[in-house]
């Protein structure tokens, strides 16, 4: 049979469609049966909706000052109460969610891309490995927060700079994960088989090693996402993060610190959302790991 006529080509693409459909179905089934992942995803969806819909449904702008109504507890009008400038806390926490989770997401994406490239090449070229890994050892010797503060001190308090600082602090972690799984993949027979075919290093790294390191990378990156949210909050709390008056969970906490004894809502609400976001991401990451890990597929033992 030679595939020349259209009917056969159609048949083939139909076949491809069917196989893909079948696989999607299986994935959906495994997703639904994975309680951790479903919970994590639901929480993340809620947080995302909250961050975008929150400022819309609230009648107050997060930046409008109303000194007459400062430090009011939660009421029907101000759901989360008001802060020390009389700003509506609900809309501040909601738009703070945009900032905090935006910083987290940017950090996650950036560390994933940069960490992946570094990890892959370090695993493949041993000389590069020595250089890059010693460099990342040096970076890892500093506590994340100190490193981030130092970078912020140099760059100045800007949301973009928060992303840069946290990304720099977290790249070594991701690079190491990618590197260690790439080192294992590199020794697999199918890589040797590709070398026997005369495949270029580029092809081996990007077409063969990369797809096999994606699962641990994605899982690790969701944890980085969570840590980035905490780090951003910490930086803003210390005054080295997102500058006032823009809200972020961290600087709302910072504002709340002074009045912690008379306005509990100023620390409880942003704090609760940080906890919620980090918990959601960790659940999501754990669930994803179970979904992607081939061993969770309980194979039948002989």
């Amino acid at each position: 049979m030679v595939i020349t006529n259209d009917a056969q080509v159609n048949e083939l693409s139909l076949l491809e469609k069917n196989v893909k459909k079948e696989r999607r179905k299986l994935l959906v089934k495994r997703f639904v049966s994975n309680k951790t992942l479903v919970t994590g995803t639901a929480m993340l969806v809620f947080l995302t909706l909250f961050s975008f819909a929150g400022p819309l449904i609230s009648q107050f702008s997060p930046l409008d000052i109303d000194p007459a109504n400062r430090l009011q507890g939660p009421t029907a009008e101000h759901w989360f109460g008001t802060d020390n400038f009389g700003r509506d806390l609900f809309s501040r926490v909601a738009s703070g969610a945009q900032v905090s989770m935006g910083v987290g997401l940017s950090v996650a994406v950036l560390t994933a891309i940069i960490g992946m490239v570094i990890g892959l090449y370090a695993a493949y070229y041993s000389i590069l490995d020595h250089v890059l890994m010693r460099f990342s050892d040096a970076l890892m010797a500093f506590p994340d927060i100190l490193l981030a503060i130092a970078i912020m001190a140099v760059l100045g308090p800007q949301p973009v700079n928060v992303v840069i600082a946290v990304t720099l602090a977290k790249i070594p972690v991701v690079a190491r994960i990618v590197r260690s799984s790439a080192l294992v993949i590199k020794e697999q027979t199918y890589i040797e088989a590709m070398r026997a075919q005369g495949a270029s290093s580029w092809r081996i790294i990007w077409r063969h090693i990369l797809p096999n390191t994606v699962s641990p990378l994605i899982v690790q990156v969701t944890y980085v996402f969570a840590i980035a949210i905490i780090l951003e909050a910490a930086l803003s709390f210390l005054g080295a993060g997102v500058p006032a008056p823009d809200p972020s969970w961290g600087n709302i906490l910072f504002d709340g610190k002074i009045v912690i004894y008379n306005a509990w809502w100023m620390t409880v609400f942003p704090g609760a959302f940080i906890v919620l976001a980090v918990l959601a991401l960790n659940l999501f990451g754990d669930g994803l790991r179970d979904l992607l890990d081939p061993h969770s597929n309980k194979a039948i033992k002989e």
Partner: protein
Amino acid sequence: MSHPLLEVKELKTRFSTEKGTITAVDGVTFNVDYGETLGVVGESGCGKSVTAESIMRLLNEKSTKYGGEILYKGRDLLSLPESKMLDIRGNEISMIFQDAMTSLNPVFTIGDQIAESIVVHQKLSKKEAMKKAVEMLRVTGIPSPEKRIHEYPHEISGGMRQRVMIAMALSCQPSLLIADEPTTALDVTIQAQILEVINELKEELNMGVIMITHDLGVVAEVCTRVAVMYLGQVIEEADVDTLFDSPRHPYTRGLLQSIPKINGDREQKLHTIKGVVPALDNVPKGCRFAPRCSFATEKCLEEAPVLDELPNGQKVRCWHHARIKEREDVPDAIEAT
């Protein structure tokens, strides 16, 4: 001794998995007596290892359900509490595994590991146990065992490790030894040495041995009786000469014919059994071998055969065993692809 050493009666082992329940062993029956070596052969997925692990009760009991009986000296092992099983495992029934490297703990010396089971089961002091360990190593043919007991598993070769495993398994003089592919990972010259050791020790201790293997050559060398398994069932059982001379089940025959013979005709194409072993969650209706069998009729596809006992003591699970007599009768019984 009125009871045989081990009677396995209608053993069923079920696993619950993500996809539902899987019956890995489905109604296996066989006996092992003192001084006898029973070979259990089959391809991967046939349930031979699960059978062994069921006898030792080594499987995770949360997700495993057993059925049937395993009578060891008349006692049903399946109904014993775990604490009683501890006394039996390694003391009365021992097991050796295929992979001697991962079956030995890398952080303890060989002597420590052998002595440990002696201390636990025979309540000897550490010093006496070590002496016994040396003796056991000598029995299994390890040169200068006094030195070897202080070495770590990674310091010795694969063949030596398997001897250490045997020494460990036999240190409490068990009545039954289960050997799960003990020589598969070894080279042929070393395999010959190990098989000889097992055989000699069997005679000496009058043990029963269950030899689990996929290698019919090994079976021919060391076994007295053979049970052939396919998809969780015993499909044929006979003494070793009968099995090799007149296999009655099409599968057994197919297996025997598909091995390249060291003395066979090189020009002739190898026989093959068509198709592949089906998955355990998709067991064929009727005879489990029917879809791959060239003798299969309508009946085979519909009705499952039972294990019939023939006058000569041979047992066959096939509707057509009367048609399949001598090997020479139907030379092209199994289709070549």
